[in-house]
């Protein structure tokens, strides 16, 4: 009896070992998509990130995938929190064996994610995360198509000089993005003789009037107020600037993009939104390559709205991954990282190369086009706003 039981056990395990493994999912190429999909993360942007990458992957698979293999997305939610984002990156690398990761968003989360990806040796891309820190670590596995804080500051200063702004106040959230951008602008502005006053605030602050009153009371009043925020302060600062009487004498430059497309802008600001300027990397003057024209057409065909500029950068990332894997003839993360260094890709808005110089220019693309627009009518859409720079 006992020997019969043992015989059955051996047969059972033997069958398990010898059975075919079924569909070999190991053949698929896996790309991690780690992005905010729930609050407190910016899940509105996260949703657009998902839509962009899904479109890119769909197009790749329609053409036979990469290296003849199907591309599969592994999605994870970083919730806009560094700890959750870092864990999500760790999980998709360790459990799902992704070849690369795209979709990171919030700057503070991105910094945590970059460290994990670097340590685990898997390429991670940043399409719209701005802290300089992401690339100053000079990792072989961190690649950025996004602009970065000190570059943006250097692109913005000529606008300030051209318009004659001498005293610029920057109200910035105290995050990797906000503080990084403010300090970079102060440094770049000072080099051109512009006095830059910095006022930080906690990112979820609701009452910004003390800081605005202080700016109003200064002997040399600011002629421009730059807003650097991604939470409700991006609406509250312009609104409260009017309420304390700082605006309209002090002009407002609302960073970044949102007055041109945000449905909340006109609801919050009403008529006071007219005249506000905002910097952006997108405008009707944006020069698109042929891939960009294709994407500009394909995205609204599928999703019924126009893609924001960061969607172009994210789409580029996925296509660049495909290009690099083809050159490397491999989806191995290390070989991919090596091939990415030599990238010269005709992207949506320019030829993408990953430069390596010093400071934050490490695996960094620098071919961005900056514009400054101004809203000239109530409830105006961004595409109809006046381009006041360049």
């Amino acid at each position: 009896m006992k020997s019969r039981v043992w015989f059955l056990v051996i047969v059972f395990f033997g069958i398990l070992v010898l059975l075919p493994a079924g569909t070999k999912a190991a053949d698929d190429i896996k790309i991690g998509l780690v992005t905010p999909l729930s609050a407190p993360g910016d899940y509105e942007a996260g949703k657009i990130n998902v839509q962009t990458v899904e479109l890119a992957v769909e197009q790749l698979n329609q053409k036979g995938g990469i290296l003849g293999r199907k591309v599969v997305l592994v999605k994870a939610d970083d919730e806009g929190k560094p700890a959750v984002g870092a864990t999500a990156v760790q999980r998709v690398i360790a459990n799902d064996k992704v070849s690369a990761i795209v979709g990171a968003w919030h700057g503070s989360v991105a910094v945590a994610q970059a460290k994990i990806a670097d340590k685990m040796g898997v390429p991670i891309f940043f399409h719209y995360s701005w802290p300089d820190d992401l690339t100053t670590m000079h990792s072989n596995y961190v690649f950025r198509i996004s602009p970065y804080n000190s570059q943006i500051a250097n692109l913005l200063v000529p606008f300030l000089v051209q318009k004659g702004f001498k005293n610029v106040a920057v109200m910035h959230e105290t995050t990797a993005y906000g503080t990084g951008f403010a300090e970079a602008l102060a440094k770049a502005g000072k080099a051109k003789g512009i006095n830059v006053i910095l006022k930080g605030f906690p990112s979820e602050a609701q009452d910004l009037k003390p800081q605005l009153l202080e700016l109003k009371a200064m002997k040399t009043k600011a002629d421009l107020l730059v807003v650097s925020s991604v939470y409700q302060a991006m609406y509250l600062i312009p609104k409260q600037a009017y309420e304390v009487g700082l605006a309209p004498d002090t002009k407002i430059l609302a960073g970044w993009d949102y007055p041109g497309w945000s449905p909340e802008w006109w609801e919050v600001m009403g008529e006071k939104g007219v005249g506000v300027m905002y910097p952006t990397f997108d405008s009707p003057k944006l020069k698109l390559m042929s891939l960009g024209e294709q994407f500009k057409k394909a995205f609204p065909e599928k999703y019924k709205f126009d893609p924001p500029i960061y969607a172009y950068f994210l789409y580029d990332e996925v296509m660049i991954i495909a290009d690099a894997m083809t050159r490397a003839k491999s989806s191995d993360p290390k070989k991919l990282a090596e091939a990415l260094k030599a990238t010269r890709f005709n992207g949506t808005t320019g030829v993408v190369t990953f430069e390596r110089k010093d400071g934050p220019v490490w695996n960094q693309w620098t071919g961005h086009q900056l514009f400054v627009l101004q809203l000239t009518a109530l409830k105006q859409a961004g595409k109809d706003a006046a381009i006041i720079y360049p």
Partner: protein
Amino acid sequence: MECGMFFELVVRGFAIGLVYALMGLGLVLLNGVLRIINFAHGEFYMLGGYAAYYLMTLVGLPFFLAIPGAMVATFVIGAIVEKLLLTPIHEKQMEKPMDYALIITLGLVILLRKLAAIVFGPFYRKPPDYIPGDFLVLGINLSGNMILTLIASAILVLGMAYYMRKTWRGRSWRAITQSQGGAKIMGVDISRESWIAFGTACALAGGAGALVAPLFLVSPTAGGPPLLKSYEVLAIGGMGSIGGSLLGGILLGVTETLGAVYISSAYKDAIGFVFMSLFLLFWPGGLFGQKQ
């Protein structure tokens, strides 16, 4: 520093302090009557804001009906929450009602926030201005919305203080605060007063959210900062004290506003937190002690 700016900062700090006082008032009530900590208190502030927004934009109510409407809505939701989730605290005469309430209300925070994000979307909403335009008060330009908030907050706080002293229900709540057993003997229905008190606390939070919606906007995560401020007010003013809530809120508002300008704007919230910590260290009972 200019005297004019200092005076304006004090006035604005006073104004925001009254809002804090209103936020803290509901917690004072809860802590006194139900002896629980409600981590979801801020979420009722958020729900009140959304209620006012949709009552005005979808239903078309004027603000003087939308704000009370928001308070009624949050009262009802609060009462349902109490009946469904918190009844065991007094019916089963738990040994550690605080621990139970802590866990349940923490779960409620997550549920309400995620639900709000799904139902209302991630957008920042602003109802139409309740009282459009700015008015000169003591030489300071204050928006009509802020003036309304000040007046309404003062009325609600003082009204609650009167209610607690002069009405049968108010006295029964104070009796429960002192001795549940004693209150029962005197004919107080603990079960009924619990859901009414909880609902009232939620209505006060909802009222605060509705009043400041045009000032600070509404979003699914709008409840976070007010929750923190409410507990700071509770710690400064003293648990169970309405007068403490009023004075504590004002002190917190003025300290934060002045601190943002004269110490550091980036650490405005931390300054308020340090202020509260000093009370916990040197005056743990708060300004007006435990009960009133």
